[in-house]
């Protein structure tokens, strides 16, 4: 018997392996990133021989896992909510075609948002795809629902979505588990082109079949009613993490006059729910982030409150403090108002010693009036340095750079220097096709690939360039060769921490690109500092400020923006915060008064 404190994501990984998954694939993204590493950990710990893969993007991860399910295997694919947008194409189609074994699609939503572009609700995507969706309220439920999802998937021969939210994914709980048993699945591919490669006429028939499955599933959908008092006329309907917040809120408010109906599967809704709700007078639906239950309830009863009637805010996380307020106001329960939350939270910033800082500093120095499209990753924080102008979605920077170029060119306007930045993992994810598109369509800009050799933001997952797999070594997919293969003729590989070299190279590349109407690429290659710090032979360069030379010009603290260089308002000098300095020594190059010295 093992007893551990597990993250919700880790508990889900446990459930997936206990449920018998033989293939698990994922692309990292907060708040989903910890599922796959823990599955890998358990796989090794119990010598389970399951296949665990970091894919290059969510679409690839989905398609691979789906094939295993067609061949009778049990699959799981894991991603964040915006990752599902990337995998939406195969998902929509897989809903029609179905499968033989089982497949659970684990998607972690980010109400807030804390680390995402949107607050989209994957339960809504499930409705759109006509797929059942389970919505756990705690890590332990995440584990149980993972197993339940596999069973439902196998029974109805369709993928099942397991929707997490950041409070479940990144919540922790004490969890007990036994040794995970080995499995022996009967893997075989039964040819059936009318199903697996259905033409539109058969897709119509598959659609009828899917509708029937959803109807049957609705009738079996489980729910639970927490009754505090038989005479209660007040009801909250909810699913997922909101349930946990609601139970703790009612306890905090000493309230027993409201019952709570919890739906494990918010779509498709069970018709029996209509019998329950008719016993109540005041009904409030609390769910994040979209009115999924609410839209379905309207079929049975229209005098309910929720997001559609403006009681629940249309955006933002339904944090526990918001729920306490909403519940107390709606059901008229007395409570002492919370004080105003008017403190400032510190913005995230690039780490001390981050090589991206050097790249961005070189870019703004080389082209103070440039346009800087950028992308998703740690380097989005180049925003703070005014070196990031756009951030749309994974891989967009390249086509956006191309779009800006053609916008100016088509109207014969002078083209400002365009420098696009993208991380190495993001480039493999969806930058490659964008680069092919831009080369093909005769665009001209400078692309800087910020190659720190890892997927740093989400916890250092390996990239195809490293060739590192969960199970050992795979094949390396070298970045420079890929870029060359996309048709780029001018490629420079350099270390961005040599700032002057990078500035010169940027200028040369832009001249080339404008003159030849071609894209040039700089691979700014330097490992993530947090990884370098883990190495035994890391060379820490201790720096100091020569106060006689420091003029208080603030270039190092405000333009270069290293968090370890702090301007002292009283003394009008910069000092070094040694508690955060990572000893990269790059700032020495930034001070033109030579006030930053190596000790």
């Amino acid at each position, binding site marked *: 018997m093992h*007893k*551990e*404190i597990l993250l919700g994501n880790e508990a889900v990984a446990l459930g997936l392996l206990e449920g018998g998954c033989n293939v698990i694939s994922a692309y990292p993204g*907060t*708040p989903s990133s*910890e599922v796959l590493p823990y599955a890998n950990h358990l796989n090794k710990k119990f010598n389970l021989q399951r296949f665990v893969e970091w894919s290059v993007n969510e679409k690839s991860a989905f398609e691979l896992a789906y094939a295993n399910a067609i061949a009778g295997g049990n699959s799981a694919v894991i991603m964040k909510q915006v990752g599902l947008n990337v995998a939406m194409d195969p998902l929509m189609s897989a809903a029609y075609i179905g499968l033989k074994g089982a497949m659970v699609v684990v998607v972690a939503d980010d109400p807030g948002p*804390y*680390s995402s572009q949107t607050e989209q609700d994957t339960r809504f995507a499930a409705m759109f795809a006509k797929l059942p969706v389970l919505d756990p*309220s*705690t890590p332990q439920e995440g584990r149980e629902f993972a197993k339940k999802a596999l069973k439902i998937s196998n029974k109805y021969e369709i993928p099942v979505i397991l929707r997490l939210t950041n*409070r479940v994914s*990144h*919540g*922790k*709980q*004490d969890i007990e588990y036994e040794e995970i048993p080995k499995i022996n699945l009967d893997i075989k591919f039964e040819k059936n082109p009318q199903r697996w490669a259905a033409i539109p006429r058969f897709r119509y028939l598959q659609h009828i079949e899917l509708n029937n499955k959803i109807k049957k599933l609705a009738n079996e959908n489980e729910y639970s009613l927490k009754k505090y008092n038989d005479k209660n006329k007040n009801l909250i309907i909810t699913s997922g*993490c909101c*349930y*946990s*917040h609601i*139970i*703790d*809120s009612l306890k*905090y408010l000493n309230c027993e006059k409201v019952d709570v109906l919890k739906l494990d599967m918010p779509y498709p809704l069970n018709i029996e729910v209509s019998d329950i709700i008719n016993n109540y007078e005041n009904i409030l639906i609390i769910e994040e982030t979209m009115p999924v239950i609410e839209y379905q309830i309207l079929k049975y009863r229209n005098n309910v409150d929720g997001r559609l009637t403006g009681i629940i805010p249309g955006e933002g996380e339904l*944090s*526990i*403090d918001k729920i*306490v307020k909403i519940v107390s106001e709606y059901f008229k329960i007395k409570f*002492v108002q*919370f*004080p105003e*939350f008017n*403190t400032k*939270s*510190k*913005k*995230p*910033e*690039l*780490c001390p010693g981050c090589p991206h800082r050097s790249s961005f500093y070189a870019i703004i120095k080389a082209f103070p009036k440039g346009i800087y499209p950028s992308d998703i990753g*740690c380097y*989005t*924080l180049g925003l703070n340095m005014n070196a990031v102008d756009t951030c749309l979605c994974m891989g967009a920077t390249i086509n956006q750079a191309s779009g800006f170029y053609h916008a100016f060119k088509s109207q014969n306007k002078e083209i400002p220097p365009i420098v696009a930045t993208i991380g190495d993992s993001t480039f493999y994810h969806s930058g490659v096709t964008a680069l092919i598109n831009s080369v093909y369509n005769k665009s001209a800009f400078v692309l800087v690939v910020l190659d720190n050799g890892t997927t740093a*933001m*989400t916890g250092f997952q390996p990239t195809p360039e490293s060739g590192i797999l969960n199970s050992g070594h795979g094949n390396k997919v070298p970045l420079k060769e890929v870029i060359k293969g996309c048709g780029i003729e001018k490629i420079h590989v350099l270390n961005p921490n040599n700032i002057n070299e990078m500035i010169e190279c940027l200028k040369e590349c832009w001249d080339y690109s404008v003159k030849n109407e071609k894209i040039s690429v700089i691979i700014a290659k330097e490992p993530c500092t947090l990884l370098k710090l883990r190495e035994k032979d890391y060379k820490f360069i201790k720096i100091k400020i020569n106060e006689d030379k420091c003029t208080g010009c603030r270039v190092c603290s405000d333009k270069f923006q290293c*968090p370890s260089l702090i301007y002292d308002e009283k003394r009008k000098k910069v000092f070094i915060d*040694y*508690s*955060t300095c990572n000893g990269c020594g790059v700032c020495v190059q930034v001070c033109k008064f030579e006030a930053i010295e190596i000790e």
Partner: protein
Amino acid sequence: MNKQIIINGVGGQGVIFLSQILSKVTLNKGFKIKVAETLGMARRGGSVISFLKIGDYNSPMIIPKDGDILICLHENELDNGLYYLKENGKIYLNSNKYFDATQVALKHNNPKMTNVIFLGYITKDRDFPFSYEEIIEVLPEKSKNYFDIGYHESKSN
């Protein structure tokens, strides 16, 4: 035991590490626990906050002004933590006004151990719900020495 603990600071200070250590201690003591941690982008130098709810709870989030104990590793983040602390709650603040774990860590040439030194210091307090023995048992080997440093520093104060 029903106790709600808030740990906060800025990314890189080891808020999450402290949260993990105290979670393990709670587990060893046989209590139920729910924890909420800040992960992802915010960890890159931004405000970080962690909630530990020990006992009979469903949600991992602490209701404002309901927490029992605040462990704050950075003075600038104090208000963010206080928002969740009861009026009569217990505050442990790493600051040069009280006990400066950051300076002690620098003195021992290991600024990354600030969190563990501070934990050592506050463990000495008789209101702190975990004992020296309970914590030292779950600390990684390389941290134990620094935990001791913090623990013994407090004796002289």
